[in-house]
């Protein structure tokens, strides 16, 4: 679904990604872990072309993307993204947040979009909040709206950039629950998270990124039970 090959990304003199190869299969759930500054969020943002790679290539759903020639807007529409800080549109109601892109980008008619929006809000358990503004929601509710907003574009893959890191501990569960449900429905997902319990339960593969390269890639059982790399062992000790 996503093939990243030899991805290099630098910010000025700082090389954040140093030749990353990552193949994500359809319906696969890949969890990216690593200490902060390791480059895992940057990698995620490259897959959505919010950051442009300096070297290497990215193939989305069988199409190799050329950032210079291709219409990135169209590609982004097929790759959903959920942000750490939700980034809901504060001037729009919950429902308006969800149906904004289908109406503006897909030119869906308003009635149809509303129906879709309400279905998605139902799915994330927030149909009763359709008409309130985001400022009235808890962090967990905001993140669930953000997930519904992404799903409204019917993306082929969903990227999650530390979706629970900005939440109070008691609100983490409700967001992970929605993500788990998505995974069970067969959504292809790449998740940057520090929630090891989620990684263990939901991930098909856990990838450890350290200093801009992948140092470990294994199913959860092997990753936690028999890590190959010393840095991975240290990391697991730290988080558990």
């Amino acid at each position, binding site marked *: 679904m996503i093939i990243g090959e030899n991805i290099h990304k630098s910010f000025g003199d700082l090389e954040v990604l140093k030749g990353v190869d990552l193949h994500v299969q359809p319906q696969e759930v890949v969890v990216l872990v690593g200490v902060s500054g390791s480059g895992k969020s940057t990698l995620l943002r490259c897959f*959505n072309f*919010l950051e442009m790679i300096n070297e290497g290539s990215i193939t989305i759903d069988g199409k190799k993307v050329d950032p210079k020639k291709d219409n990135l*807007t*169209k590609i*982004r*529409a*097929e*790759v*959903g*993204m959920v*942000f750490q*800080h939700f*980034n*809901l*549109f*504060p*001037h729009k109601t919950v429902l308006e947040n969800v149906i*904004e*892109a289908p109406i*503006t*980008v897909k030119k869906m008619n308003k009635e149809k979009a509303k129906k879709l929006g309400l279905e998605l809000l139902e799915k994330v358990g927030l149909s009763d909040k359709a008409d*309130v*503004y985001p*400022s*009235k929601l808890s962090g967990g509710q905001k993140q669930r709206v*953000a997930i519904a*907003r*992404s799903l409204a*574009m019917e993306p082929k893959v969903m990227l999650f950039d530390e979706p629970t890191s900005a939440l109070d501990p008691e609100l983490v569960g409700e967001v992970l629950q929605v993500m788990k449900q998505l995974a069970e429905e067969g959504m292809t997902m790449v998740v940057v998270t520090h929630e090891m319990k989620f990684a263990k339960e939901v991930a098909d593969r856990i990838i450890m990124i350290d200093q801009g390269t992948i140092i470990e890639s294994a199913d959860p059982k092997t990753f936690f039970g028999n890590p190959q790399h010393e840095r991975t062992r240290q990391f697991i000790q730290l988080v558990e």
Partner: protein
Amino acid sequence: MFELFGTVFEVFMRTYPGFLEATVVTLQLTAVGVILGTLIGLVFALMKISGSKILQGIANVYITIIRGTPLIVQIMFLYFGIVEIYTMSNFWAGAIALGVHNGAYIAEIFRGAIQGVDPGQREASMSLGMNRKQTMQRIVFPQALRRSIPPLGNQFIITLKDSSLVYIIGVAEIFSLANREAAQSFQPFESFIVVALYYLVLVMIFTYLLRWYENRLDVDKT
């Protein structure tokens, strides 16, 4: 002390018919200054964030010149400069000067408001497949407009007070009336107290209306 109250009151009663007329002129000047300034400000703000070096350069030159010279000089320049090539009433010369002057400040207000919108908003919008134009129109501008209302309100109040400077080209607004009254009646102190009260009341009404509008906007949507 009581004597002063008495004479101020007396000047007030004698002059209010003229002052009411002049107040209309002051408000008209302010309205043109604000509307024209907002339009100019919007255009130059867009030029500044356009990414085009040429447009940015033009906007920077305009803003630098306007902010770097006194309003009274700009009024005189417009009045004597424009009248050479195009006949215009002194009211319009003054009103346009106010608009052009305001435009530079309002451009900076809009630019700041647009750039002050959380970059995450743009990213979220782009990640949903919205293009640059859609992102600006539907996500960034509505939020920027909301953010710019308090500083715009402040700029409107400044415009109202700055409109007094067009007395220099003989527009019959309230300050020029006070100036004339002061000279004719030999009661300069009382005349200027009266005109100060007019400005004060106008500004207070403006402030109140703005606060009411801001509150109405903020309901639910902070």
